[in-house]
């Protein structure tokens, strides 16, 4: 890690070397279309990690945009609210009576739950408690998540810092400058609100190549600049290098850039903000572009004028961390990307012995490396059989953290909480280990191992 002065923002640039930017066909073009008004919206309680839902509506009820749909059993003041006005036509209950989906049939004309409006001046005198109350009641609070464990922030525990990552490096992620160029309303207001709410520093992390004046001119924040291949844009990496998490009670909040805009807009307009800009991309998709959508839209509605190959995998989120989905599934609450990639078919004959001019690899084991993987194609194939850990050093080469992943994985598999804590499990998140799963020669599900390990320490630590 080299730290040097960066002329434009006059700040230290944290340069990371480890990692990998996946070269993936089907990058979204910078062209924004509007997805229009869908007929239905869905809410999926499983999106909200840390909220145990208690329903407040039943089938047939009418809700307005911003009306509460369920609250959190552990934090009764925290609501999740409807992203549109209409009638609840279905509540899908799964195993052990878990609420899987709430479907809203939208009205022709939208009606809104009203919240108090503020302007730049009046917001400056708001108390932390008043901000918290408005965020909780409006259902926008869940956009604030906390580390460790990446669950919805606990309103009772203030964080030591708030992070706003503004430089996603994930495959197909929306470009920060492009999003802010469309409409930056609420950005400064959102940042100021987060500052007042938390009473802690708000760290705004931008990429090296940003030219956004909105970012450069942001106030009430501490600005940072990171560069390097993915996962340099992941918030977990930023936290690790700026305000590392010491233990399970050392809380950091993080909010995505577009959710900062939404927080600002809630206070500016007094309405629950439902719009966001997402990207749709991937080799198997006809039009790769930016789409303005409404929260809770189903994938098929977002891809309404878009054709995709029959044998393709729809992913809500990016290819490294997203959720395999069907067209009727809603886009995940925190997701800003839809990836559509080809499913693997057939089996390569003696693939391990061939020169591999068209095999995609981060390693130097195939000839494709001489062409930097151009001409290689990636699909959903595992490309090998699961084996035990053989520490070649691949996974270390894509994790830009001062953490020893091989040992952390071993201790996690052994469920040795004491060692996991010492090796930094609280600083970890599955999304930061996704590339480790990607490059592992033993085909271990490293991100899943970390996820299970975190769940284990959360329960038993």
């Amino acid at each position, binding site marked *: 890690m080299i730290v040097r002065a960066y002329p434009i923002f006059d700040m230290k640039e944290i340069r990371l070397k480890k990692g990998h930017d996946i070269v993936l066909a089907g990058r979204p073009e910078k062209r924004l279309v509007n997805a229009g008004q869908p007929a239905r919206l869905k809410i999926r309680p499983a999106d909200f990690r840390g909220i145990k839902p208690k329903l407040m509506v039943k089938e047939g009820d009418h809700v307005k945009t911003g009306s509460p749909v369920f609250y959190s059993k552990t934090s009764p003041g925290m609501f999740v609210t409807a992203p549109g006005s209409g009638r609840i036509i279905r509540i899908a209950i799964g195993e052990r009576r878990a609420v899987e989906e709430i479907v809203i049939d939208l009205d022709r004309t939208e009606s809104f739950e009203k919240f108090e409006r503020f302007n730049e001046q009046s917001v400056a005198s708001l108390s932390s408690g008043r901000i918290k109350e408005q965020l909780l009641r409006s259902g926008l609070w869940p956009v604030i998540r906390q580390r460790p464990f990446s669950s919805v922030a606990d309103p009772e525990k203030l964080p030591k810092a708030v992070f706003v990552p503004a430089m996603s490096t994930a495959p197909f992620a929306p470009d920060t400058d492009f999003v802010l160029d469309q409409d930056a309303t609420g950005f400064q207001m959102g940042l100021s609100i987060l500052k007042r709410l938390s009473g802690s520093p708000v760290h705004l992390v931008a990429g090296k190549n940003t030219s956004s004046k909105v970012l450069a001119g942001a106030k009430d924040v501490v600005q940072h600049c990171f560069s390097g291949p993915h996962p340099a844009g992941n918030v977990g990496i930023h936290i690790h290098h700026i305000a590392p998490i010491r233990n399970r009670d050392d809380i950091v909040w993080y909010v995505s850039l577009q959710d900062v805009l939404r927080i600002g807009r809630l206070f500016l307009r007094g309405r629950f903000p439902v719009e966001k800009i997402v990207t749709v991309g991937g080799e198997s998709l006809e039009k790769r572009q930016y789409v303005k959508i409404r929260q809770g839209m189903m994938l098929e509605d977002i891809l309404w004028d878009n054709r995709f190959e029959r044998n393709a995998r729809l992913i809500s989120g990016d290819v*490294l961390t997203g959720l395999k989905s069907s067209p009727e599934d809603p886009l995940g609450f925190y997701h800003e990307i839809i990836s559509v990639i080809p499913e693997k078919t057939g089996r390569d004959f003696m693939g391990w012995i061939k020169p591999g001019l068209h095999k995609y690899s981060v390693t130097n*084991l195939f000839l494709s490396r001489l062409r930097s993987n151009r001409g290689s194609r990636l699909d959903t194939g595992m*490309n*090998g059989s699961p084996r035990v850990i053989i520490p070649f050093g691949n996974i270390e080469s894509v994790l830009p953290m*001062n953490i020893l992943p091989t040992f952390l994985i071993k201790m996690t598999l052994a469920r040795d909480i004491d060692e996991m804590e010492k090796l930094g499990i609280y600083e970890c998140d599955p999304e930061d280990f996704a590339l480790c799963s990607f490059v592992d020669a033993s085909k271990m599900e490293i991100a899943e191992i970390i996820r299970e390990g975190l769940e284990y320490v959360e329960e038993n630590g």
Partner: protein
Amino acid sequence: MKALRKFLDGVEPHFSEGGKWSRLAPLYEMVDTIFFVPGTVTSTAPHLRDAIDIKRSMFTVIVALMPALIFGIYNTGYQVSPDAGFLQNMLTGGIAIVPLILVSYIVGGLWELLFAVVRKHEVNEGFLVTGLLLPMTLPPDIPLWMVALGISFGVVIGKEVTGGTGYNVFNPALVARAFIFFAYPGEMSGDPVWSLADDLTAATPLAAASSVQGADAVALVSGAGYSIWDMFLGLIPGSVGGTSTLAILSGAVVLIATRIANWRIMAGGVGGMVAAALLANALAPASQNTMLSLSPLHHFVMGGFAFGIVFMATDPVSAAQTDQGRWIYGFLIGVLCVMIRVLNQAFVEGIMLSILLGNAFAPMIDYFVLRQNIAKRQRAYAKQ
């Protein structure tokens, strides 16, 4: 190809759960995936995966071993009759060495398979490397039954009793070699019988260096007809794969370029060897032990040092598994190798024992690197 796929798919039900040969599922998995890359798709994020797998990784090690193996075959023939010509020498060498490799693969493979079936896990490709490494460290005229016994010991005691591939403390090929070395010392290094031809005996350079007490080791080596250049090229008696430093270095280039072996171990090893050899040189005038006067270059090209540090010490499982740890581990092996060679002339070939010792120390080295890492993180916590 299609017919083969059809056949494999046809017999697959017999080997899967409930089939009549379901116990032999690892055998099916092995054969099936040798011919075809598994068609499984990702079930969870990340949805894409790199093309690397263990088969490819181990195959790369095999590729890296090829120059040394091919040279070893040629050299074996060459040692019998230097003037016979290239083809004749390859033939003579091949007749001697191919059986060694076959026995090693077949006997070791059967053990692997047996354990895979009993323990219900897949056959691990790491054996492809172990099974080739062992014969390459043996003299070409070793009896086949010794190879069979050695590889059995290496696979069972060196690997399977501690849990199989990935859990082994020691490099299994070296365990096998150490077993043969200590069980049948007469057939192994140190003795002058290293050639196929019965009437022709030749000492290895290391044996020559320590052959006469009190005589100058450097002079003894050159007196036996070995110049540094000879030993670098490798047309000298020695183990199958270990004589040509040149061929070994070309394998090292493959391993380092593909990052299958960690260059830090090799660099640390050479560094440790040079440091220890220079120290020995400095002490040489004050001692009767003339082995002390062997230069770092001698140590580098003599015996199995290069082969060991490139192919044996770098086994990722039995080596240290942290980057700083790999430096220390390599350095330790280099130092120990020179110490054993110079100070204990009962074991002139020090590299085998020094790597086994390095293997034994590797977990401890990693332990200290881990504590360092934890301490560093604690400091970062305190600083914010």
